[in-house]
């Protein structure tokens, strides 16, 4: 399975959840597969999906899933200690680890070599870290949401991309509808 297969497999789990999605192809694929006002697409700023997602989770009570990549987590490595030390039990960080920088031509990352993001997350103090095969991602993600405990999932999948159009939605529209959705869900 490649990343787009993983995304397709988790749509039933994440479709009605608040989702912050990583820059580049992951956002473009999610937008193509299942555009929702509850999705926040990053159009720039590599590395900050987990930080934005944690910020959303700490500020309100609904569950938040941040979809990140191994390359992006490596770019913003400082995020893992911050997550570990600021526990938000409504937060799940899903790292889709295909061992490559997918959006830029599948150049290999260190996560595909000697570095284990699972072990790094544990060493940073994250308490619930689950590494899974790509095919099990949907069930592992559902279990993480059901546990109501902050969880880091490292999903190991193959490198590769499908052709997807860029997102032409204005950033302010993406933000506005995401915020309206959060407000409505927290009003109840």
């Amino acid at each position: 399975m490649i990343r787009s297969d993983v995304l397709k497999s988790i749509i039933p789990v994440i479709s009605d959840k608040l989702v912050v999605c990583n820059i580049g192809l992951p956002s473009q694929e999610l937008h193509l597969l299942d555009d929702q006002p509850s999705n926040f697409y990053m159009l720039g700023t590599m590395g900050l999906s987990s930080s934005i997602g944690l910020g959303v989770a700490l500020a309100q009570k609904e569950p938040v899933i941040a979809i990140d990549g191994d390359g992006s987590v490596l770019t913003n490595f400082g995020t893992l200690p911050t997550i570990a030390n600021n526990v938000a039990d409504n937060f799940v960080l899903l790292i889709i680890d295909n061992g490559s920088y997918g959006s830029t031509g599948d150049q290999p990352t260190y996560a595909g070599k000697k570095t284990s993001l699972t072990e790094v997350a544990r060493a940073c103090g994250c308490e619930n870290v689950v590494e899974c095969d790509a095919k099990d991602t949907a069930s592992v993600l559902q279990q993480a949401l059901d546990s109501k405990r902050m969880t880091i999932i490292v999903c190991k999948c193959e490198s590769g991309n499908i052709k997807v159009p860029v997102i032409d939605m204005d950033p302010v529209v993406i933000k506005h509808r995401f915020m309206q959705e959060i407000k409505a869900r927290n009003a109840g």
Partner: protein
Amino acid sequence: MSVNKKIVSDLINNGVEFVTTVPCKQLAGVIDEIDRSDAMYHIPSNKEDEGMGLCAGAFMGGKRSAIIMQNTAIGVTINTLVTLIQYYHIPLPMLISYRGELGEPVACQTEMAVHTKALLAQLLIPTYHFHSAADVDELDAILKYCFMSKKPVAILTDASFWKGA
């Protein structure tokens, strides 16, 4: 009221409930004051661009946020300021220690100081410079302007300001 208390009280009165910090010697007092307050969630960041991601998320989650950092961070955060904070119209007060100004003991700090205002001007970020202790009286209006305009706003606080605090 001390400058540190005044800064924290203005943040609280403007609805700021989420603050991230990367420390600087000049900012130690205000960070202590934030830690003493129950009205704000303080989340230290390892790097300032990470902090801006946290602030953007908290803002979208319904909490006004602010970042406290050193001016060296301008060099770290330009891409984040442009492609996240400005691109998505996210208000972000940035309380910045302006190292490398008059009274600075560390020579290297002057290297970023000479670029600080030029970089902020190039990024079209509204910038205010607190030089004497009384300048803090403008903070309340600056915060209101920041949230009204949905822009990042820089408040540079130099050594003279903190000396008079």
